């Protein structure tokens, strides 16, 4: 297609024409934006399971679609459906059940959960020593048939592909806490290759279970400031002590700009480029010199054909762990030099917590809304600045700003680093 819009590298330009979001603050863009701009927190004491003995007892749970003992994968599917529906409806492309492109789904790994293991254990009739071999012995009973598909790694993607009518093999992926950004990247790349005119990128995570809380606790990753949940997530503050586990989902309809303009779609934003760079220093820690984080942002600028001077706002990874925020500061100082303290940067995680595999998509949607509204949601709970961090974190109160181009950072365990460049419409 000989389109009007090409980027500097001669590739199709990728637009965002629909978005949907669910976080612990609420369901839908309108509700979320209102609360984000007001600096509200969605973090609460966990009430869906017993919290005795846990070191961390707070989280940003999503009640939408939740019911007791629901498999997390089923909860993920429900909120992914909701955000996908919101995005497709806004875009006006195809319809629910006839989306004209592929789907890229960022989500958490799937496995059987404790309620199911306990059901199987009960069926074994064994009293004091239940083994997996015992579970296998009873597993072929008809009443457990529903557990089979539930534990399939592709189940959520397959069900969503049926629901939305997306084309081809749905791709479920993880790059840990960068997953949502990776899903968007894959969609952008497919459109640039000319494989499709549109793609649906979704990130969804509903990992607030006892075992997830324990696993992250054992890695000393979580805040233990349980007494006042709303104030626990304090990215870039001196007294930050870990991230707050949270649930959330977001969806973006990505579309070839020519295609979108031709059908008169409203352009919510543009994704001029993205970048990645892996870190092999350690399984959970960043290279002390920050090179991979720096490289990831520079790769994104190169891909987008921009310079650091063009960046008006940074949507931080900003997890509120001592390590992440320090390294993000180091990386930003290296990339932006003297300008680093002057560019507004804020962490949505201060309000919604860390939505893990959903975060990259959730924060891309919020970044796009930030550009649309020309208003920056704050980094809340910023009462004790960290003297080691020299950034303008938009403390506590939202701020109007002129934003043409923004970046959204996502970093994850396993050395995953991704950076998205997001801009307003082309004119």
């Amino acid at each position, binding site marked *: 297609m000989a389109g009007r819009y090409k980027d500097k590298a*001669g590739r*199709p330009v990728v637009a965002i024409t629909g978005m949907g979001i669910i976080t612990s603050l609420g369901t839908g863009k309108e509700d979320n934006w209102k609360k984000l701009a007001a600096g509200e927190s969605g973090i609460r004491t966990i009430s869906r*399971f*017993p919290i*005795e*003995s*846990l070191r961390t007892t707070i989280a940003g749970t999503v009640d939408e679609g939740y019911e007791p003992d629901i498999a997390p994968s089923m909860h993920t599917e429900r909120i992914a459906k909701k955000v996908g529906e919101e995005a497709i409806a806004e875009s006006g492309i195809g319809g629910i059940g006839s989306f004209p492109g592929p789907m890229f789904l960022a989500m958490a*790994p*799937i*496995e*059987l959960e*404790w309620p199911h*293991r*306990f059901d199987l*254990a*009960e069926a074994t009739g064994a009293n004091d*020593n*239940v*083994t*997996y071999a015992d*579970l*296998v012995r009873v597993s*072929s009973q008809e009443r457990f*048939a529903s557990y*089979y598909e539930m534990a*399939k*790694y*592709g189940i959520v993607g397959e069900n969503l*592909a*049926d629901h939305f009518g997306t084309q*081809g*093999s*749905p*791709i*479920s*992926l*993880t*790059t840990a806490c960068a997953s949502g950004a990776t899903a968007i990247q*894959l969609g952008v*790349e497919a459109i*640039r*290759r*000319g*494989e499709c005119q549109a793609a649906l990128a979704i990130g969804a995570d509903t990992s607030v279970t*006892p075992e997830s809380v324990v*696993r992250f606790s*054992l*890695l000393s990753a979580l805040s233990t400031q349980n007494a006042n949940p709303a104030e626990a997530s304090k990215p870039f503050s001196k007294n930050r002590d870990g991230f707050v586990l949270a649930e959330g989902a977001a969806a973006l309809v990505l579309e070839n700009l020519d295609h979108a303009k031709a059908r008169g779609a409203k352009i919510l934003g543009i994704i001029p480029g993205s970048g*990645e*760079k*892996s*870190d*092999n220093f*350690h*399984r*959970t820690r960043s290279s002390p010199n920050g090179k991979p984080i720096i490289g990831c942002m520079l790769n994104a600028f190169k891909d987008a054909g921009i310079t650091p001077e063009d960046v008006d706002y940074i949507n931080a990874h900003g997890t509120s762990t001592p390590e992440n925020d320090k390294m993000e500061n180091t990386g930003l100082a290296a990339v932006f030099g003297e300008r680093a303290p002057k560019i507004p940067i804020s962490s949505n995680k201060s309000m919604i917590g860390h939505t893990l595999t959903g975060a990259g998509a959730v924060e891309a949607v919020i970044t796009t809304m930030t550009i649309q509204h020309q208003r920056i949601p704050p980094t809340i709970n910023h009462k004790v600045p960290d003297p080691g961090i020299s950034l303008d974190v938009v403390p506590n109160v939202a701020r109007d700003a002129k934003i043409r181009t923004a970046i959204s950072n996502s970093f994850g*365990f*396993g*050395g*995953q680093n991704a950076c998205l460049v997001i801009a307003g419409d082309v004119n």
Partner: protein
Amino acid sequence: MSARREVWITGAGLVSCLGEGLEANWQKLADESPPAAHDETTFAPYVTHPLAPINFDTQIPKKGDQRQMELWQRTGVYAAGLALANAGVTGNAEILDTMDMIIAAGGGERDINVDSGIMSGIKAAANPGAFLNERLLSDLRPTLFLAQLPNLLAGNIGIVHGIVGSSRTFMGEEAAGVDALRVTFERVAAGQSNISLVASSFHGTRWDLLLVTELGRNLLKTPFKPVWDRGERGGLAMADMGASLVVESKEHAEKRGAKPLARLVAIQSDRNRRQPGEIEATLATEWAAIEPKVKKDKAVVISGASGLEPPTSAEKSALAKIGLPVRATGSHIGHGFDTQFLANIAIACETLRQGKLFPACGSGDTGEAPKEIAQVAITSVGNWRGEGLALIEKM
């Protein structure tokens, strides 16, 4: 957009129950007729294909690194090392610095002793919720989480072998393996990547993974039979395997003087809801897309049939219409879910080099090798979802 580039496979690594490396696997495929590398006792009555003994030290020299990984990660990191060595890029910092990775992985191996302890104690616990929390906190090893996360295979490959361009991990059993290679193929062809590692590993000889398969009543019980002949419901023989490919643009490979194992000509992946006739229809559509490129008198099929029914019979019927000679690897190396397709691409590369087919095993292994094998089509019909088809050719 610039013209599509040619895509080469310049390295392959494979470990399975048959051994390590393409040649060793090929020799066993050729010699062991009927297939012998399966285990009927460890998980009786279920048949499994455990990994052949491997000296992990040769690809993962640091014991500390090995300790940080569960077997599925060690297997995958090992196979990745074999592929990098095969491609001649081991330790080449300049290339590894920009090398991309797409991994197909499920992860999810659990500490079955911890789980057993909790399942055994929960009934007597006064407060089950508190009991679960306490036991998880006290019994789970902190590093186990990292040994379970799917994307930590990529993380460990980065740490051990130094690949630091990018990594993405696809989840979803067989379809993840096909899509990992398909997306890599498209990225390299379009100039979005110059050189990529595609890798996967699966450690299926574990009770916790047997469980999730048997919930669908899908495990193969003794006696062993070839994948094509496992009766009305069929059966999967869980396997251990790691497979890895270095995929590269022709230009990039030529510039560094790399010798290709094969040209990756085409790759298709799709899905359906598995209603009667849908597997055959999807395979037929995929075949129609690649058929113009197939040299029919010089081509053979390596099938990824799992042994589960009805998908295996559906594939058999679709392949019968295509009419090329067929060999399924599952009868020999078992089923490795995410990893099977990449393992079969590796075996297909060796098939091109050998110019022969291994002996037939079972009713779906049909036809004889033509005088010259110039192309191999590789199928992947997922045990539950996903149909894929690739074509590679000799250079």
